[in-house]
């Protein structure tokens, strides 16, 4: 019998630092959206306040949590050690300072501040990317999960480079200015869709079987999932530079097909599960796939309408970007955190006690009763705000966003209560 490798799990403080900062950013972003939501409703999407909130959600919330989770999950999924945990802490401090500065300088729109804190953000991301790539270099057997995570990191790298170019264009101007909009849409497509989706796809192939005890499923569908999705991203980005709506439609169709194939593959794995009733958070993380499928199918319809009628669909595209960020990315993260946070705290507090005294199970550490209130409230709020942006309805927006603020506070309460367990 071959002997197992020893555990490569890192300490829990580093992932926790990122994840808890992410949750605080999430709450703050929801409050700011409630205050500045008028910008969205009046069709002013590219205002300093909206840029600030968008970056707080995408970097402060989703990216910070994703990076924290990766410090925990990369050793688990790929059987490698994180190259340098110390660098991870350096990155964390840089990211927090940069995030605060970047958010404030967007609000007051200080070009000098944007350059300064934008450069700090880039430095933080580059440290993360270097640390991850050096860690992944030790992977001995590549599979689709590795390829997807690697491709997501590549998407993040390109997003950062484009972000730097865009800040340069805003502050200095001139540099390939004719492509400003194409570069902006590429930055959004890679940063919002590609980096997060490929990361969720890749780690789902580890976490779904692990949390459901699924065995005997095939992995061959992951290949068309990856190539269809990446082809969709590539063609959509091409369409921005050629200003071609038909090309954008082809890209959206492929993107949507990628999501549908992924949903089908996860369903096949789900059917092979041994754990008949998986935990609440995990079930909602899986329900987020429906959000991704829904948003991508609606994108095809909206672009189809745009191509056939030549009318502006900017409100619809903002509504779909929002649905994508909340209904797919955020719901996935919120659901998986229901597993990750108790695991990290349990490891910190109880891992040395197991076998000596009775210790709680992971399920007992999260309040599923409150979770059963939070998740439906979050989904309802997301749907209300998406519809309000689509229809430009202030009543729906403030109802939905008010519910978002309350549910975000409840989520913070649930997660921070773990520390009392």
């Amino acid at each position: 019998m071959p002997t197992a490798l020893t555990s490569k799990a890192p300490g829990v403080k580093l992932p926790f630092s990122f994840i808890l900062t992410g949750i605080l950013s999430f709450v703050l972003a929801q409050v700011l959206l409630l205050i500045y939501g008028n910008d969205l409703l009046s069709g002013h999407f590219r205002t300093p306040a909206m840029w600030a909130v968008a970056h707080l959600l995408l970097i402060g919330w989703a990216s910070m949590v994703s990076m924290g989770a990766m410090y925990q999950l990369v050793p688990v999924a790929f059987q490698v050690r994180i190259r340098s945990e110390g660098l991870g802490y350096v990155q964390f401090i840089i990211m927090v300072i940069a995030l605060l500065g970047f958010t404030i300088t967007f609000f007051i729109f200080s070009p000098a501040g944007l350059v300064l804190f934008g450069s700090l953000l880039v430095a933080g991301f580059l440290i993360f990317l270097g640390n991850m790539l050096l860690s992944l270099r030790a992977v001995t057997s590549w599979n689709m999960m590795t390829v997807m995570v690697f491709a997501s990191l590549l998407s993040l790298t390109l997003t950062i480079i484009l972000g730097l170019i865009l800040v340069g264009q805003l502050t200095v101007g001139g540099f390939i200015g004719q492509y400003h909009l194409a570069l902006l849409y590429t930055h959004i497509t890679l940063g919002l869709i590609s980096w997060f989706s490929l990361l969720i796809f890749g780690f789902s192939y580890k976490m779904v079987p692990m949390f459901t005890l699924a065995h005997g499923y095939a992995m061959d569908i992951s290949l068309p999932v990856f190539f269809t999705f990446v082809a969709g991203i590539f063609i959509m980005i091409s369409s921005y530079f050629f200003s071609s709506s038909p090309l954008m439609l082809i890209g959206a169709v492929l993107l949507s097909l990628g999501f549908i194939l992924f949903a089908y593959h996860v369903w096949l794995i789900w059917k092979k599960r041994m754990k008949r009733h998986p935990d609440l958070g995990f079930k909602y993380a899986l329900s987020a796939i429906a959000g991704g499928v829904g948003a991508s199918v609606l994108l095809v319809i909206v672009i189809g309408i745009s191509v056939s009628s030549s009318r502006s669909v900017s409100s619809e595209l903002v509504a779909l970007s929002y649905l994508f960020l909340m209904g797919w990315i955020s719901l996935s993260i919120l659901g998986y955190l229901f597993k990750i946070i108790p695991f990290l705290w349990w490891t910190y507090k109880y891992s040395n006690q197991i076998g000596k005294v009775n210790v709680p199970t992971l399920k007992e550490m999260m309040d599923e009763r409150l979770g059963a209130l939070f998740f439906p409230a979050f989904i309802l709020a997301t749907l209300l705000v998406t519809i309000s942006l689509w229809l430009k309805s202030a009543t729906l927006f403030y109802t939905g966003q008010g519910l978002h603020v309350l549910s975000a506070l409840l989520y913070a309460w649930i997660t921070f209560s773990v520390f009392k367990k």
Partner: protein
Amino acid sequence: MSAVKDKIIEQLKQVLDPELGINVYDLGLIYDIQEKNGKVMITMTLTTPGCPLHDSITSGVRHALQKLDEVSEVDINLVWEPAWNPSMMSPEAKALLGWE
């Protein structure tokens, strides 16, 4: 089966996988138990390679067995072959997972 081995199994049934809430013995993670003059060798696996609870579960097994007066030394041999699969679970474990 010796009386000591019975006691070892009883102790192993006190060690729960914190994710599943099922003890490691009924989960089928224990492949072999060797006991001689107080020295115990446990050959075991985990449900998935790279399981994040790797250290917790193996040290949990060690702690539980060290509670026995008859045990002076515990060695854990963690293996991945044969790979764990659901058929290794006891009927009790399957019932706890919702498969009546």
